[in-house]
């Protein structure tokens, strides 16, 4: 055990790679989710079609398959990325597709009268989104987004299979060099768990703030709808 813990500089380096991937992938996913999610609520059929193609393609694919494709296949047709960039792209595109469904579902869940009021007040589509729909949808988005960021954090472990030295890779290396199988793989699981709990704390805090802003009270139990919305399978509605 002590040999495993003595290699803490390696663990820290690995954790840093994992955290960086989570943050960068999460940022990309958030942007994609907002853009394509709002596209999914558009009046124009072709804009909604854009949302469908993006969501079905990237949600339908396994992140590891995407990563392998960026990493092994694309260089053959002349597109070469750094490993880190390929990983962020694969994670962001995949999680962003789930997020887009969450955004679309949340905007559609804002009471219809609110939307009608914006028309009565002659708001531009931009003002409608910015001032009325998004702020209210945001509260609905947060719990599923919290699940998604943790899914993304877990998803970063795939980079260990294409040569990035993240937490998972570090545990494999340490297991190889010390032979301490049980200790190495226990430590890595505990570290991931701690990271997930910290993320969870941030999400809870954000949920409480948003709910207070909107004067809502948090439900005690997550409903089936909330769980289904964050489900990594098909999306909401």
């Amino acid at each position: 055990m002590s040999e495993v813990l003595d290699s803490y500089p390696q663990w820290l380096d690995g954790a840093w790679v994992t955290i960086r991937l989570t943050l960068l992938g999460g940022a990309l996913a958030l942007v994609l989710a907002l853009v394509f999610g709002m596209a999914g609520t558009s009046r124009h059929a072709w804009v909604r079609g854009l949302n469908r193609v993006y969501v079905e393609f990237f949600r339908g694919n396994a992140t590891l398959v995407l990563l392998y494709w960026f990493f092994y296949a694309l260089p053959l047709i002349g597109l070469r990325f750094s490993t880190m960039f390929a990983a962020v792209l694969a994670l962001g595109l995949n999680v962003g597709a789930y997020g887009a469904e969450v955004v679309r579902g949340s905007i559609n869940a804002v009471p219809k009268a609110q939307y009608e009021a914006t028309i009565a007040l002659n708001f531009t589509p931009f003002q409608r989104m910015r001032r009325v729909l998004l702020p209210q949808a945001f509260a609905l988005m947060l719990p599923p987004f919290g699940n998604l960021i943790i899914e993304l954090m877990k998803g970063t472990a795939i980079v260990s299979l294409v040569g990035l030295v993240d937490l998972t890779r570090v545990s494999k290396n340490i297991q190889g060099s010390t032979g301490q199988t049980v200790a190495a793989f226990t430590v890595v699981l505990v570290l991931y768990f701690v990271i997930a709990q910290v993320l969870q704390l941030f999400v809870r805090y954000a949920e409480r703030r948003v709910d207070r802003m909107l004067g809502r009270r948090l439900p005690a139990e997550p409903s089936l709808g909330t769980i289904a919305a964050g489900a990594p399978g098909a999306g909401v509605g």
Partner: protein
Amino acid sequence: MSWDWHYSGEILPDLLDGLRYTLTATLLGYVIALVLGLVWTLLRRSPSRVFNQVVRWVTEFIRSTPLIPQLYFVFFVLPAWGVTIGSLTAGTITLGVHYSTYTAEVYRAGIADVPKGQWEACTALNLPRSRVWLDVVLPQAIRRVIPTLGNYLIAMFKDSPLLLAINVAELLFSAYQVGSKTLQFLEPITMVGLLFVLVSVISSILVRRLERRYATN
């Protein structure tokens, strides 16, 4: 470099071979996930507070840690404890146990969604505990959660490539293998990607149909 149709046709049998392993792991894993998930849910309703919390944190731990280190743990640690298992078995079990913590959450929400009046009616009718669960609560709860559980089957299918971390010869693994023989990765990996999209799109249509069929409102 352009797409080589002849090569794509040649490698297809290898990919289908890999698909067999993928499907085996996914389907058997799903059975484990469905059964074990229900076990977790029922255990969490135990009257002992301590036991309840232990179960809660164990499932939370499994749910919030990634699959690949879990695969390593099962595949490398169990032999150290004297249990030898093949990589496909290890992969299937890990996949199943991992997703059982998700299905447990689904069952729990499904049970919570059963209207309170149903429970009260059972009390009024003085039904025995076993009948309350088997004849009243679970049939209604499971009906509600079928579409969500369907989503998790798709999710497990999409997580199955991770099994290549412990050398299960699943779909992506075999695509990589044929690719590395000729150094032509474009065709095999693209084909795997398209196959995944195809399966996911078809199954999400099926799930949407289930949703309409079992809609409770």
